[in-house]
């Protein structure tokens, strides 16, 4: 059985949105027959993640949270994977949904044996409306942005290559751009304007490194 490791800290507004928007990925992976290791909340520490990567040896690693050029951070900004520990991602297809991780951390993971690494070159931005912060799945402003990035794990779970998964997200984002731009509400709905800016930003900086043909299934 193929194995997936998902990490989803939940200690601030941004990670709270990522936490809840990752649930549909877990559901889909389980229903597709994957063995899912769900590391959540304050369990997302360096010790737990590196330990699970070494013991579970997942085929696909999906990490949510905050990041920088040289590290992925878990609970309370603890550095979980850094340039010096990037070999922990060897033999995996990895998607890190966090800021800035692609260029340096992604490159390091590939140099140390990672199969493919998908991530963002700059900030990953989540727009939201304050009245929805207790119900992130209902937030209409965040929806197009998080649905676009969810296309990546969904595509990989359903048998796409890493490159196809990135393209699926670009394609979804493009569809969203056009729907928003040509919405009859666009000129008057300033929430849509904010959503569009974040969608364009995130899509522009999404890319991958490593084997474009890598699959997890």
């Amino acid at each position, binding site marked *: 059985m193929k194995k997936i490791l998902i990490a989803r800290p939940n200690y601030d507004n941004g990670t709270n949105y990522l936490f809840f928007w990752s649930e549909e990925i877990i559901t889909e992976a389980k229903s597709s027959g994957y063995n899912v290791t769900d590391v959540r909340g304050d369990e997302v520490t360096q010790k737990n993640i590196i330990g699970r990567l070494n013991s579970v040896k997942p085929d696909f690693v999906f990490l949510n949270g905050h990041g920088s050029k040289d590290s992925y951070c878990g609970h309370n900004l603890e550095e979980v994977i850094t340039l010096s520990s990037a070999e922990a991602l060897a033999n995996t297809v990895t998607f890190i949904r966090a800021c800035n991780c692609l260029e340096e951390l992604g490159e390091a993971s590939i140099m140390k044996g990672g199969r493919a690494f998908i991530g963002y070159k700059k900030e990953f931005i989540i727009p939201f409306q304050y009245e929805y912060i207790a119900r992130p799945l209902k937030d209409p402003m965040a929806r197009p942005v998080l649905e676009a990035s969810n296309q990546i794990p969904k595509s990989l779970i359903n048998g796409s290559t890493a490159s196809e998964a990135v393209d699926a997200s670009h394609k979804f984002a493009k569809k969203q751009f056009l729907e928003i731009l040509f919405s009859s509400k666009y000129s008057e709905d300033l929430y849509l304007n904010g959503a569009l800016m*974040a969608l364009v930003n995130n899509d522009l900086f999404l890319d991958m490194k490593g084997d474009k043909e890598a699959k997890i299934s």
Partner: protein
Amino acid sequence: MAYAEIIKKLVVARLQTMPPNVGFSIGSHGTYTKEELISEVRKETDTGKAIVDMQLEFIKQMPRLSATLSD
């Protein structure tokens, strides 16, 4: 007026069009209200610079997005 100052005013003006209950989570920079973002841009903090970059990139990308209509 210096070019950077004009850009800053443009970005502030665009942010001011947004409703007051809008927020943005910008990675490890944190979560910001509209008014906080405007303040960050005016003070030219790292977050403010990231927002200026985002807004400029958005404006630059609009022709490309419009061109996709013919695809």
